């Protein structure tokens, strides 16, 4: 494969993964604060549909994104109200919201089905886009894709290098300790879940206003569920989460490549399978990565002969991540 082709592929992966990155980082913030927001897929659909409709009526892409962020934040606020304030199971509320928002997007989005609308315009970064090779990969995209790339270091820096980030993580690990230190646990959690929801909303609009321009029934094809899985695969760390998103993007690119393969065994498989394969593979990877946290695997690694043992243990240590300790448990004020 020549290098130009590689640059185009890498650029496609960065672009294709952009909504997934934004959504998964939104969920990472929410889960680091201790709240599972299972509604992600439906929220993304409803926000994407709203963003498209608002963009169509106002002719303003930015307003579309704002509306999408607002919808994502509102759905997240409902989750907070019912799970944090009224203390219903986060899983149950999130699941119901996921289905409800999906159907709402189909019902309300019916007039916009396959209508052409507005879209984000292409914006190469001046000068940087002219750098050979690297310019094609990194600096020849739409603003949404730059946002997704900037969001990764920003989220990491906020979570791991700021005081607020420390408090946020404490909410997910030891809410009682955060409470004792004077943090208003539930309002703060709600705030971060709403911010995460707004990001997911923006991710939805990134589909309808940028990557898969337009709106159709169940536009995201289940990508929201994969975003949830990638947050786990990424060990709640923005860099690894982003890596997971791009891995998924690469799998999808590969799948489309095979789909166009010359006649032979690969071309005889129906195209729908290629669209589904990345989802199944992602779960497999998730199982392998999570399997590394299994004590039995650690015992096997410890029993390996010497030249293999240290790298194996090192790899396991890097792979195994524990979830935030209080994830999914709504905090009760002592």
């Amino acid at each position, binding site marked *: 494969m020549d290098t130009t082709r590689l640059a185009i592929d890498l650029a496609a992966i960065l672009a294709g993964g952009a909504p997934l990155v934004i959504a998964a980082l939104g969920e990472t913030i929410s889960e680091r604060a201790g709240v599972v927001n299972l509604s992600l897929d439906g929220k993304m659909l409803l926000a994407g549909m709203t963003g498209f409709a608002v963009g169509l009526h106002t002719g303003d892409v930015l307003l579309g994104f704002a509306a999408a962020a607002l919808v994502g934040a509102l759905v997240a606020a409902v989750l907070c109200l019912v799970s944090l304030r009224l203390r219903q199971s986060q899983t149950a509320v999130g*699941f119901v919201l996921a289905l409800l928002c999906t159907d709402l997007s189909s019902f309300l989005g019916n007039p916009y089905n396959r209508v052409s609308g507005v879209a984000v315009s292409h914006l190469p970064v001046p000068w940087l886009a002219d750098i050979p090779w690297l310019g094609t990969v990194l600096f020849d995209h739409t603003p949404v894709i730059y946002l997704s790339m900037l969001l990764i270091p920003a989220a990491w820096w906020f979570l791991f290098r700021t005081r607020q980030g420390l408090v946020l993580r404490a909410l997910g690990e030891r809410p009682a300790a955060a409470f004792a230190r004077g943090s208003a646990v539930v309002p703060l959690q709600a705030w971060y879940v709403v911010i995460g929801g707004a990001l997911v909303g923006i991710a939805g609009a990134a589909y309808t206003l940028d990557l898969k321009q337009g709106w159709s029934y169940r536009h995201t094809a289940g990508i929201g569920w994969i975003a949830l899985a990638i947050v786990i695969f990424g060990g709640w760390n923005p860099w690894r989460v982003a890596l997971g998103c791009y891995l998924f993007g690469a799998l999808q690119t590969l799948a489309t490549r095979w789909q166009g393969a010359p006649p032979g065994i690969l071309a005889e498989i129906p195209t729908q399978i290629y669209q589904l394969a990345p989802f199944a593979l992602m*779960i497999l990877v998730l199982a392998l990565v999570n399997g590394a946290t299994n004590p039995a695997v650690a015992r096997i690694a410890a029993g390996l002969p010497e030249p293999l043992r240290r790298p194996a243990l090192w790899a396991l240590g890097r792979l195994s991540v524990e979830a935030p300790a209080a994830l999914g448990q709504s905090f009760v004020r002592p």
Partner: protein
Amino acid sequence: MSHPTHVPRWRAVPLAPLLALLAAPGFVTVLLWLSGTPVLATWQLMLSGWASTAATRADTLMLAAPLLLCAAGLTITFAAGLYNLGIEGQVTFGAIGCMAVMRAFPDWPTPLLWTMALAGAMLAGAIWAGAAALLRRYGRVSEIFAGLGLNFLATGCVLYLVAGPWKKSGSASITGTEPLARELWLPTFEGVRLAPVAPALGLLAIGVVWLVLARSRWGLEIRAVGINAAAAERLGVPAAQRMTAALAVCGALAGLAGGLQVLAVFHALVSNVSSGIGLLALLVVLLVDARPAWVLPVALTFAAFAISAFKLPLALQVDSSLGGVVQGALVLCALIARALVVRRT
């Protein structure tokens, strides 16, 4: 599911669904009004559409049947504290298992073939649920995500079979296999699509599940694991085994639902054989807080809504997803109402 232990459960029973019944239609009405949909006509159709003809009444029962089977299974997994989101894939695999038996042994006498096909469906569903249980136990993937991944995989498998080895001869269609011969359909009333075996099995399943959960030692252990797995383990209940078993039983019931979809509804293996029935059953079980006695009326109601909603596009040019909106709003409102009722007592 967690219950606040200080409140007697029976006190929360009738009030919560009643409050939800008031709030949810309010939300939907506002939604209809805002979206410029004829409010009264839409509600009229949503509430009575299912009863308009003998055919739609039969369709309602035939939709309620797999819904009951799945909800019965999910009642067990919920009692064990598990969210079996993989149920869609278990229904799909049940359908595959059923079709595999039907294709493998065409010479068997029909009643035997039906029995074995449905047994095959249950086995296939249980195996698919077992895969989720294994991933949970050894891969430490939550059953929610293991199930979701397996759902995608099951859809891939059925598409492969329908488009590949089990392809309809002389057609590139991927919607379904060749239909079964008429004499291989489960006994069906002439004129309407009602095969009474399906609803009967649904009723039987929910009854047996109620009996097992409420009256047997195994059911007690399942519930103990659901409330506090660590405590159950201390008392000598093998928690991981019980969870695996709960998932497998749920998978078997979901598989049976899938098998019935093949033998009694579609009379072929179609690519969207589960068509959201498992997820709808999850909503049913969430609405009734996994109480088996309430599953029957709610499953019937949800089936009626779904069948009515199918008539919306033709009659009023309204999207049929409104049915899902009504169901989702009801469950969300029920969760809220339940919290409010429990707090006040």
